[in-house]
């Protein structure tokens, strides 16, 4: 009976098209299972054993990735409630606090997740730096990582404006005034970011689009490249 069920579940075309091999019962099948799985083939075929130890990497890269994943989920849920309009945005914060079921935990997960992601991405960079992971042949991946870090900061900044409270307003005012001090392009860049001369409705909608659309897409693509290069560059934390 059990055999029969097993056959129906595993011995069909659909199962085989998804999992191209049987149960990983021996070393060969195990390596095949790893190689044919998108989520597991982050590591190369051959790898030094001690570079897999927790104390070598502290798991910082993966934790950052998980945080990004959590932020995407909670962010999508928050988008159901949030309206990027100067008269509504702060009211929506209050709605989340007082009227929406699980609104507060949702918003806090997004908020604290974002704060800790900035910290952890930075720590991840430190770890790579101190284990000399940026050296040949991983220079390109280090570069991708730096761009990812900048993207993380940009996500954090654009998200900061969205509650539309005093803190957000003045923080962004300061930041765009910093942008203005850039030589030559400063004025125009500030105008581009704010969509006017003052932080207002235009700035809010620009920041919102960047925060929920442009930057997450960019980060997703860069993370894919980042992971792919880990494998291609021959594993973790092991300079030549």
């Amino acid at each position, binding site marked *: 009976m059990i055999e029969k069920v097993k056959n129906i579940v595993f011995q069909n075309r659909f199962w085989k098209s998804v999992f191209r091999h049987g149960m990983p019962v021996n070393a060969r099948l195990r390596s095949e299972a790893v190689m044919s799985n998108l989520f597991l083939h982050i590591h190369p075929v051959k790898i030094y054993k001690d570079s897999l130890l*927790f104390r070598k990497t502290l798991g910082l890269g993966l934790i950052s990735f998980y945080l990004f994943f959590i932020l995407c989920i909670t962010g999508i849920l928050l988008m159901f409630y949030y309206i990027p309009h100067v*008269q509504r945005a702060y*009211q929506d914060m*209050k*709605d989340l*606090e*007082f*009227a929406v*079921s*699980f609104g507060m*935990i949702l918003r806090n997960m997004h908020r604290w997740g974002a704060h800790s992601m900035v910290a952890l991405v930075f720590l991840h960079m430190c770890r790579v730096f101190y284990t000399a992971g940026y050296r040949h042949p991983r220079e390109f991946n280090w570069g991708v990582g730096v761009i990812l870090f900048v993207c993380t900061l940009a996500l954090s900044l654009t998200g900061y404006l969205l509650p539309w*409270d*005093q803190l957000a307003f003045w923080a962004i005012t300061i930041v765009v005034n910093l942008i203005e001090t850039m030589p030559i392009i400063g004025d125009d860049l500030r105008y581009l970011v704010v969509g006017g001369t003052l932080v207002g409705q235009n700035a809010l909608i620009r920041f919102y689009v960047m925060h929920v659309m442009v930057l997450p897409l960019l980060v997703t693509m860069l993370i894919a490249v980042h992971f792919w290069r880990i494998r291609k560059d021959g594993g973790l934390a092991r300079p030549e």
Partner: protein
Amino acid sequence: MKRIFVILSFLILLFYIWQIWKDYNRPYLVYQKEFKELLKQKGGGEAELDDVKFVVRQRWLEKLNRVDRCETCHLGVEDPRFVDAPQPYTTHPDADKHSFERFGCTVCHGGQGLATSVEDAHGPTEDWYKAISSDNFLENSCSKCHGDFIEQEAPVLAKGRTMFKEYGCRGCHNVQGLERVKVAPPLVKIGEKVKIDWLYRWLQNPQMYLPETKMPNFQLTKEEAADMTRFLIPRVRIKDPDNFEGGSYARGKRILSESRCVTCHSFEGKGGDIGPDLAKVSSKVYPEWLFEWIKNPQAMRPDTLMPAYGFSDQDIRDLVAFIVEEYIDLELEDDVIQQNIQFVESANVGRGKELIEKYGCTGCHEIEGVEDRGEIGLDLTAIGDSHISRMDFGMIEVSHEERTVPNWLYNKMKNPRLFKAGLKMPDFTFSDLEAEALTTYLMSRSKEVVPASYHLHLGERPSDYNPQGEFGEILDNYRCLVCHTINGRGGDLAPDISIEGSRVKEKWLKDFMKTPYAIRPILVERMPRLKISDSEVETLYSYFRTTLVDDRVEKLTGSVKEMSLKDPEVISLGKDLYYNKYACNACHQVNLKGGTIGPDLTSVGERLRTEWIVYYLSDPKAFLKRSIEPVYDFTEKELEALTAFLLSAKEKK
């Protein structure tokens, strides 16, 4: 490693369970359950009880851009059964005028309408500084829809507005829409008016000389006061104060009481409050100045409230002689005066000018040689909107719940230099109620705009009635409008004379102006004897008779002629009505018998026109809205009889 993983997983599970419990157990449930119990006690039906659902209740006020969730807990606001229920279930006392459907709660009360917990909704919290208005300042919201002139419905706000104007706040603080007027006397030629040592003492503490003065206490040091005095009076007087040619003390005393100066001025606290207290005036001003002032006050200060009496020079000389002799400061010693004068003479003129510029004296006074640089204080146009972070509490520890803008303003009014040493705002020595009124007014200065459909201006704007020509000149000269009102402009000390022409007879007016008396038996005689000439009274009366009339009265002339007012039978019927049926003598006197509330009706026919008597009897409230005359529904015949009786009620000699 695995063990840590298990523990952490368990902790996270607990955390999620806690979150679910927290999400279910909202703080307002307690109140809703209690309300349901209460409703059961008050006899709510089954359907009504089922209607109390455990949910957030909100009102969305689209036009005001507000969402108010106050009724989540304040469940009984619309239900008249909860009048004596405890908060938060009490019925709102004003539901008929301000419907919740249209106004919600927070537009008047403040606080955080979106919140559903007590602390957050009432505030202030860290992220919502606008706390619910305390009852003391609640009226500040009224002006959003009802304007600033709400005397009846919002007396505190109206008082604050008047105070803001009268205390000259506008001199140092800009408020858009209010005109900057210098409320205090100009200090041009001040050296010819006041004595130097008086000014020195006055600057140190104005309230010591005149407790009710509007001049604030700048808390100056002796040196500062001396410097400012020295600048204001650069030359010590040339004329000797003693060589003023005096008059008769006794005659002066009589003139002072005959002219009823006490109606406006007080003497040691007894008397009117329109002019300053004169009990110590001779220690302040020189007799020559006083002479010139009484002769024509308006020439010296065009905006004074003092009428120009028609005195002869000898009258004034007698009056001044009496004042100089009688009203002196007995506690003041001559050697102290000399010391003060010497101290002032050694003071620094330049520093005095600097101080006058620093304290913005030019906001209220016109001062020779000092340029008015405009408002030196904070712009108060939108002070009610200001964020709590802009209020500097200095080093004073104030708990979070008490850190609100109105509390800051209240303390600023009570003690302007409380928060920091070296602040410039002077101390006006406001009482608690005065500080509350001003705070309420300041909190109402807001840029918040409510839609035009919500505007409902209450109260009357001050009228700009300003008669010109001969009549206007008489009115201006004798400052009639300080006490009397015409067409909405003027004071409320004396009767409104907007339709005086329909009311009184010319002969009576002429006699009254010569020797004014109190028409109501119990009132102190207040109308001053202004010494108006007969020709001026004729001008007044001809203006009254042509302009200040009411057609409702004038149209009665025909029907009055048809009445048989001389018929003894009618008169005796009127007498019966007067004494027995309507008991008018409960309030009115005829020949010194009767009550003392209303005017004396002896010889009323000589004072009032017959048309007026008929008209007033038929509808006393039509013109004098504040009259406490009860309204009777007299028949035509009763009207005739009462009028006939009143006309016959002559003085028995």
